[in-house]
């Protein structure tokens, strides 16, 4: 039996689990309602202040996504392997003709697909409406791709935590604390560091690219508002130094790294965890 067939079995199993747990439907609904509300507000702003109204309302969507998408990804991902371990199913699974790496990859693919579908259902409906209201489709597609990159980054990070931590409650807690730390060390934290300790602005700019939450926020704002005026002085400095296109590619690359590196670390952690399961 091929690796593809085994991975397909894991994906189908995880999708079934997501649907039964109902988080899939709940997240899709919240995403849809949130998206529709922001699009409606954007349309109203457009009537009042013209094209920039979209940027403002879609920037609202960025903030909404920064808060919501990581949670959507972290809850199922941090529980994924820790739950199997806690239920005794991981030991049984590892008695089947699969490798630990395949189990990790299969779980990742299943959880990632469930989260991606959940975002797609909610966002494309809201995005479709936005296009009908006059928002350029390019904005919708690129912001959709960014949302997926953010989600995949947190699925990978969550699954890596799940492979290494137990019990499940502890894995979920570590994931959420990590996300809160990244939020706290975002733009406000960077500003505080700049004011309080005089951290050089180059370091702050670098950190903005390394922190996935900030990378997502800056990338998407660069798409909507190339001079990054919405991000204040730091944004203006970034735009002047790098330009919107480089910022877009740089932040996308950062999110891709946040997908790939935890994936490798988590798989390697599960492979090394040979004394237990």
């Amino acid at each position, binding site marked *: 039996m091929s690796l593809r*067939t085994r991975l397909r079995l894991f994906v189908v199993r995880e999708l079934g*689990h997501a649907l039964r747990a109902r988080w899939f439907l709940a997240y899709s609904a919240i995403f849809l309602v949130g998206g529709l509300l922001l699009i409606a507000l954007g349309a109203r702003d457009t009537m009042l202040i013209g094209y920039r109204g979209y940027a403002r309302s879609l920037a609202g969507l960025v903030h909404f996504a920064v808060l919501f998408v990581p949670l959507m990804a972290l809850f199922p991902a941090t529980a994924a392997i820790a739950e199997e371990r806690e239920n005794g199913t991981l030991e049984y699974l590892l*008695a089947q*003709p699969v490798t630990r790496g395949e189990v990790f990859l299969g779980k990742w693919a299943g959880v990632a697909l469930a989260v991606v579908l959940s975002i797609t259902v909610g966002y494309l409906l809201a995005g479709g409406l936005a296009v009908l209201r006059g928002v350029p489709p390019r904005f919708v597609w690129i912001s959709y791709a960014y949302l997926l990159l953010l989600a995949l980054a947190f699925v990978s990070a969550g699954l890596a935590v799940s492979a290494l931590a137990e019990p499940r409650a502890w894995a979920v807690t570590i994931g959420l604390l990590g996300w809160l730390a990244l939020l706290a060390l975002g733009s406000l934290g960077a500003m505080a560091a700049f004011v309080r300790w005089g951290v050089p602005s180059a370091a702050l700019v670098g950190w903005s690219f390394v922190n996935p939450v900030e990378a997502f926020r800056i990338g998407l704002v660069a798409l909507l508002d190339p001079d990054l005026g919405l991000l204040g002085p730091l944004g203006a400095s970034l735009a002047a130094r790098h330009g919107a296109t480089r910022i877009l590619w740089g932040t996308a690359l950062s999110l891709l790294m946040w997908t790939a590196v935890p994936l490798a670390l988590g798989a390697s952690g599960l492979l090394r965890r*040979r004394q237990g399961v």
Partner: protein
Amino acid sequence: MIHASGLAKAFAGHVVLDGLSLTVAAGERVALLGLNGTGKTTLFRCLLGQLPYEGELLIDGLDARRDGRRVRARVGYVPQRPPHFYGTLGDLAVFFGGLRGLDLQVVARRMDHLDLSLEDHAAKPVSALSGGMLQKTLLALATAAEVPLLLLDEPTANLDPRARREFVRALESVSTDTTVFLSSHRLEDIRAVADRLLLLHSGRLVFDGTIEELEATARAGSTLWVGLSDDALERAAQAFASDPRVVRVRRNGSRVGLEAASAELPGLLAELDDLGLEVLDLRTEAPSLERLLAGFVDEDAS
């Protein structure tokens, strides 16, 4: 089918398998007996390629460490405690059958063979199934692929007596070509399933033979409890105290207990009849694992 030589495993300095060597031929039905913590589950996990170890361990000619996935494709496994699976019985059959490349019809046929109807129960949540039904399902999944080796890690430990009997009966339907390696605490299960018994103590093999040989070696056997009147009780105790077939004579209320190798029990019954004693009731009790092990542990101590 299984060849272990100098197999050693320690957890944080605590030795669990201590240079274990054993061979199990294809088609054999072998039971692994031992107290808790003697290394039975660790040995099974080494066989499944789940744990690193020292020494040599070959399953069907494959090294469990290097060829873990290929080894597991040849091994069906039933754990001591059924895991808390999520989803329905149908999901379970599709996923775990699928991992072994099995068509759902093949799993369903195997389950039918064990008196489990997948068709009737496919939509049932696994959490709603009884422990016995779940263990039989895992047995069906383990054997549907017609694997050459079946590993059963105390599969009846958490079952009630009826479910245990059903599980043991289900085991009888396993192909005679399949090598069965069963670990258990229960001599009655072992007697029903295995032809050969391996006794594990402190990570080492202390006995390899049949149950009868074990009883003889350990000077411990089944106990025949005979209910007698008060005066008959005394006569019986005296008559059997010097009988070489009887390992121990015990008394409990109005019963006398005659401990002897299982094969000797019919002879003892005949002897009671010859003595002209009126037997009020009769029951047999299998020797406890602790009793069987006592001889070996004492030998170790000396």
